[in-house]
């Protein structure tokens, strides 16, 4: 009997890895066993998936990508604009130029602010040169904008102050107990982990968050549950890998 239970437990802990394309950097991991019911998870600038333990009284695991940060990256947009430029009318091109501008409000860091200003300055020149019928200069301006965008890649240090748990910003700050913070590694990439506690009316629950950034895309994994189920979260974290971005499915 005990052997069967062990076997079933071992079998339950291993599920095939799935690759998710929430942003330009795909992420692969083995989802928890089926008793953790799956749901799509969006909102708060993230897209991801949440696994809720059936009958677990609010215990859940989630993995998500910060798409709000990914949208600040202008590299893909500028590269596409350069590729499509010849097939656009002047009106369409100027419209696309305006959409390619970088955000300058609320920068994540001084480096990002400088990059955004450099991109926008190059795009301003591209607009002037296009209106001045100087197509050669427009090409050069667009390439400068792309080079400026490529020089910046978001790091964990840039996003951490924004994404880590701040109880005072939560609806019921008294429910959160901040405990330990530590540096760790996820699939060879530096990560930040916090080991906190969530006080629920029924019982205190572990509240673990891990944040990391890969190739400029930020991710987080969260565990909210009892110590007994914590190993499921650890198994999921251990299974995380980052396939080449060319893996991304076309749709």
């Amino acid at each position, binding site marked *: 009997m005990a052997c069967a239970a062990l076997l079933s437990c071992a079998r339950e802990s291993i599920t095939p890895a*799935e690759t998710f394309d929430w942003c330009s950097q795909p992420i692969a991991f083995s989802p928890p066993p089926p008793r953790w019911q799956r749901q*799509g998870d969006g909102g708060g600038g993230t897209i991801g998936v949440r696994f809720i333990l059936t009958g677990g009284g609010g215990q859940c695991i989630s993995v998500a990508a910060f798409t709000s940060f990914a949208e600040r990256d202008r590299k893909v947009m500028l590269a596409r604009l350069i590729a499509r430029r010849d*097939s656009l009318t002047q009106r369409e091109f100027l419209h696309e130029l305006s959409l390619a501008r970088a955000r300058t409000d609320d920068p994540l860091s001084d480096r990002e602010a400088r990059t955004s200003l450099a991109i926008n300055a190059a795009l301003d020149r591209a607009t002037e040169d296009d209106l001045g019928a100087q197509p050669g200069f427009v090409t050069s301006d667009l390439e400068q904008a792309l080079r400026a965008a490529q020089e910046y890649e978001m790091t964990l240090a840039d996003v951490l102050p924004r994404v880590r748990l701040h109880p005072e910003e939560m609806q019921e700050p008294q429910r959160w107990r901040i405990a330990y913070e530590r540096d760790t590694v996820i699939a060879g990439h530096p990560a930040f982990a916090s080991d906190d506690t969530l006080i629920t009316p029924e019982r205190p629950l572990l509240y673990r968050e891990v944040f990391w950034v890969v190739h400029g895309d930020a991710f987080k994994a969260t565990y909210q549950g009892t110590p007994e189920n914590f190993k499921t979260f650890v198994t999921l974290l251990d299974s995380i890998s980052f396939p080449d971005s060319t893996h991304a499915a076309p749709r």
Partner: protein
Amino acid sequence: MRRRADAAALALLCALSPCCSHPVARAFTVGTHHVRLVPPAEWEVLEHDREHVFRRGEMAIDLVDLGPAGAAGMVRDLHDARAVWMKGRRLDAFARVRALRGPPLVFATSDERAEVWREWYDATYDPGRADSAAIGLAFDELGDRVRRLRPVPRASLVEYVLESFPQAERNQIEQQSQRPVNGRQWTEVHTWNRISHLGRSRIAFVDDGGHVLALAIDRGPIEITGPVFESLLGSIEVKPDSSRTP
């Protein structure tokens, strides 16, 4: 005598009993395609010409004629429209031409599309007054221009098929493969929700003489619809070049 009567009773009982019944393949005409397949037991079949629906409760699987797969199929549709025109049904023929679609036209640039239609609409912008000789020439010209459209790669054909099913359009391709089914090479696509990988579904299609025949899960949980889809797909026999048969 008694033994013979027992045997006859047993045979009758067996014939009436569900355990002795075998699934029976039925012939269907789906748009231009003539197929034989085994309908799933306890699922009703709604035959709607180009779209047949296999339905049970809230679950549904569609077998659909999606029209031309390429320029050859589009030219064939134009020939059909021309035949209607030759019978004196001018407005019906024009309506058929207006409904002409296919991957090469969908994936053409707007300039290419305008070029395809230019001569046709120059000749037929006023259907009541259009000269018959001009209409004949416009049919010829339209056919030639359709033939000159760039053929689409297989990936674009898959995209075209997925876009024909609104429930699949927002999904992501999980995997796709080619598989032979009763002598035909079908393309099978598994899809799922991009965010959560829930909402799994399946679509399979075959190029049958220039027209696309597609089988797709429309509604229902994959745990139930998946095996039914598999049995339907496994049983489909598409008559050779059935889309050429009137």
